[in-house]
């Protein structure tokens, strides 16, 4: 399984984050909230100065491009747990 992080951050900001945190998986920049809107995970005006940002959400997509698992939390503090995701990833063929 390939983890991919998506936010409105610029490539430069994500580069700094990856360096600081040691992340080696892809970080994609979506400043125009193109993919964020396609997945209906836009949080209007929730960013600094009222910018639109992504709400936390995770989608597991299988090799044929079909969503196999999704987590749309209703609490910003409560995110998917790693073991929960790994369990779902093991079900992928």
């Amino acid at each position: 399984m390939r983890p991919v992080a998506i936010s409105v951050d610029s490539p430069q900001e994500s580069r700094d984050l990856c360096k600081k945190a040691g992340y080696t998986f892809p970080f994609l920049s979506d400043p125009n909230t193109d993919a964020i809107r396609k997945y209906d995970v836009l949080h209007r005006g929730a960013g600094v100065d009222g910018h639109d940002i992504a709400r936390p959400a995770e989608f597991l997509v299988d090799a044929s491009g079909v969503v196999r698992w999704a987590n749309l939390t209703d609490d910003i503090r409560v995110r998917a747990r790693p073991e929960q995701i790994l369990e779902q990833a093991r079900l992928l063929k």
Partner: protein
Amino acid sequence: MSKRRRNWHLWIGFLLCLLAIPSYLAVFAKFPVTRDVPWATFLIFAAGLLLLTSGVRRAFGQLQEYRGKIAGPILGVLGLAAAGFFCFGVFYGAKQIPKSAAAPRVGQKAPDFTLTDTANRQVSLASLLTEPLTNLQTPPKGVLLVFYRGYW
């Protein structure tokens, strides 16, 4: 007059209430067990408010023995305010996120997209699904899309 004892229940209680939120943000929010249901922080607040209550009762119940008739009510109100603020954040503030009713559901096709990665390359969902993983030389069995708020 100056023989009255320091009302340490008041000050310890206030200190606990003061540290409850910073300790949640710095420590307890990092672990799902103490984050999802913030019981550790609730316990700290409960201990702090109990001590504050006891301190205020001492200050007014044993006038000759304990200090804190002015500090007591002030610290008590501040401690309660901190606890109220935390509860408001946990039970209301954190839940103010969009419903995402039109998000792709399990069994549906994931919408394709093309975005810029940290090396300024254009990357599509299709390419993420087919490009081999560097350590395995085979395409991944799937892609986990993690949308996050970012740091702007």
